[in-house]
């Protein structure tokens, strides 16, 4: 701890501390987790900001994400290239938003993007159907999926355009007290 680490410069660590919800120790621990995924790809010296990008398959094999049905969407949302290949910055960003200190609005924004499968900034019926199928492992019948989607849009759509915008989603999240504790990965 302290000044002995040589992975980052002091300014880099400061910048990470200001831009995420992690402390120094946690950032170094997360770097170790990132490096453990591919020790030959990730250098031990990040002072010159190397452009190292881990492919999605490695990210998706982490124990925290391995069994999550939304892991692909999570990786896509937080990666720069939108394909799921993450740099260290993306990695830290992702776990910062999913940590317990992130505020509700920030988490709601990213949750909205995760559930928005076609990236059109609205949760339309097809997005909801895909979400439901991932939630229940495709075990609901067609009728049931249709009914639940209709009910969700009925409940949450405030401006009556048949699909959920970010504001509708955030308004619904305000009334769900569980959200902060379920949208949370501890690492």
């Amino acid at each position: 701890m302290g000044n002995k680490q040589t992975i980052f410069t002091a300014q880099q660590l400061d910048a990470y501390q200001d831009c995420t919800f992690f402390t120094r120790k946690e950032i170094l621990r997360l770097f170790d987790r990132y490096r453990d995924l591919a020790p030959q790809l990730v250098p031990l010296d990040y002072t010159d900001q190397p452009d190292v990008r881990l492919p999605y398959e490695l990210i998706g094999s982490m124990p925290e994400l391995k069994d999550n049905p939304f892991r692909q969407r999570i990786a896509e949302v937080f990666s720069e290239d939108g394909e799921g290949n993450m740099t260290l910055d993306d990695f830290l960003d992702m776990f910062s938003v999913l940590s317990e200190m992130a505020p509700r609005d920030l988490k709601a924004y990213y949750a909205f993007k995760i559930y928005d499968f076609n990236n059109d900034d609205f949760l339309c019926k097809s997005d909801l159907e895909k979400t439901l199928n991932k939630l229940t492992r495709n075990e609901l019948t067609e009728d049931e999926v249709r009914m639940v989607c209709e009910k969700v849009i009925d409940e949450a759509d405030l401006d009556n355009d048949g699909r959920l915008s970010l504001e509708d989603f955030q308004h619904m999240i305000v009334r769900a007290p569980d959200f902060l504790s379920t949208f949370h990965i501890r690492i």
Partner: protein
Amino acid sequence: MEFSELQRQSSTIAHGYHGAQQLMRLQSKSVVSNQNGPQFNWGSPPSEGGEEGDVGPPKDLRERPMTMRLKRAIREVQQMRVPVVTSWQSWKRSKAKSLSRFRADAGGVMSYVALWRKALHKIGGHFGGGVQSYFMFLRFLVVLNFLSFLLIAGFILIPSIVFRSTSTSNMTVDSTGPEVCKVYDPNLQGLVVFYQYFLDLLSGTGFMEYSYMFYGYYNNTVAESSGFHYNLPLAYLLTSVFYFTFCLICIVARMGSALRVAVATGSGAAGSYSKMVFTGWDYGCQGDRATKLKQKSIHYQLQVDLEEERLQKKALSLTLGQTVGLCSLHIFLMLVSLALIGGAFFGIFKATVFSQAQVGAEGILGLFWVYLPSIVITTGNFVVPFMCDQIALFERYSPSTTIIMALFRSVFLRMISLGVLLFTLWSQITCFKDSPKCELCQYNNKEYPCWETRVGQEMYKLALFDFLITIAMLFLVEFPRRLVVDHYSCALTRWVGRQEFLVPPNVLGLVYGQTVVWTGALFCPLLPLINTLKFFILFYCKKVTLFSNCRPAVKTFRSTTSTIFFLVVLLFGWGLALVAMIYSLAQIHPSMSCGPFRSLTMMWSIVPNTFDTLSLTTQDFIFYMGSQAFSIPLFIFSCVVLCYVAALAAVYGKSVDLLKAQLKLEGRDKQFLVKQIEELSREMGVPTRDQLDTFDTGAAN
């Protein structure tokens, strides 16, 4: 237009900044892809009015939903732009920053100290929030009992030990009354059979009876030595009263935080589908098995919700005859279950009377008679809910109503069975039937020379038996069940399956144990300590059985696993214990042969007696506080505050409704305008936005 404005602003800053090109590339991508997303105002100064700037921009920055590169770039720009502040402000800002860093580090250290943090997290990850809430409730009870024990030890136990060892400086006041009432011989035999110690440990008699464990051992010493004055009976009474108040405050405080969230989010029924879909998935869930189970649970929950709606629609469409039939069926089955519960109460009453009559029986049979009330209560708690569940199959309520009804029946049964036991004991002690036994000492001194110790022993036995039964169930039922189910697979074992960890019955067990402790704390001061140890061991035992023997429950209902529900039931238990304590303090004559209140006619009368010894000014002050001149203005003032708060809440509720209606209207306006634009553009032959988009993506490819 937003894009070009941002580009212009960023280009002015980008001069001389090496990351500018990266920035513009990132910005263009982020702006085009999310026009709904939040935008960062590059032109804003870092400290606006000094409020934002006190903790500094860093706090604001990490709450913005941008990529890390963008955030770091913004941070560098903000740091480059040196704000014009005085040295005092910059010192204040740097101190605030280091303070927040320190607080974050301290929080990290404190979370290591929190009891069982890792275990709770692991349980939550594998079995879900419902089971985790049970274990968190258990942890709360362990801490509550431990703090209560510290309270009691500090004010009752340690002074008692000190005064006993320095017996010269105290004075005991003997009671005035018939000599026969003062006889109390707690059976201090010299040489006993070797297993007698074990039997005594289990039933609280023998060597345990005349010890710090029970009420009878404490003297009514008033210690006075060189200016130090300690009135032990008063301390005993006030500590007990404060113990109850302390527990109430803890429970209400814990409930307050949960209730605040519940009230803010409104009723749970509205928006349940969208909540289930968007917040139902627990991202912390790890492991293939846990994930599959979670998915099954969500599936089941959605099916149940849809089924309930179907049932509700059907219920609305019933004819009059069918409704009448259904109502009469409900009433009949309710009467049947009440009869079952009443039968259990009668059994407890009879068992208690019989057990109290068998005092003095020897050996294992004696132990059995002594434990008879506990055995009957525990049997009743198993058999009656099981039979009520069978009855509930005929009742044809909706699933959630069925579970809530079953829970209320169980709570009713458990609490009232304890109440029946207490009532029986008290009626024996004070001879409700006005028999001549109680004429001499105002309590039944022949059978209960020191009745408080006997009540304490009863409560001790209840607590111990509850613990032993739980451990026995673990080893004799759950482990074998798992072994059988895992190693022999036939149709029967597959149907029975592994044990399911049902949260509500387990929580009721905890509440029952805690109620027993509250009832018995006045008579058995070490009971909170015993309970702390009991719950501590229970945590580990339940954890072991959870991970080895149980499968998570597929059917969970959020309302029944919520903290508020647990705390409400705990308050029921507290209320029952409070009634028992008030009755003991104010109605029954304390034993004349033992205990700190032996010279008084009523336990509470120590307070008025001590009151008379206070100085005149203190007495006047306290009289004034109780008089009308003080209490009526206080009452009026609190009414005014209450009205104000209620009015504030009503106004907020109304403004929330108004804003919701306004949001709907704006949505309709937006749709109307969009339709008009589309019509106009169609008439004028201008391509619409959709057509433009397809053209763009086509060009990019």
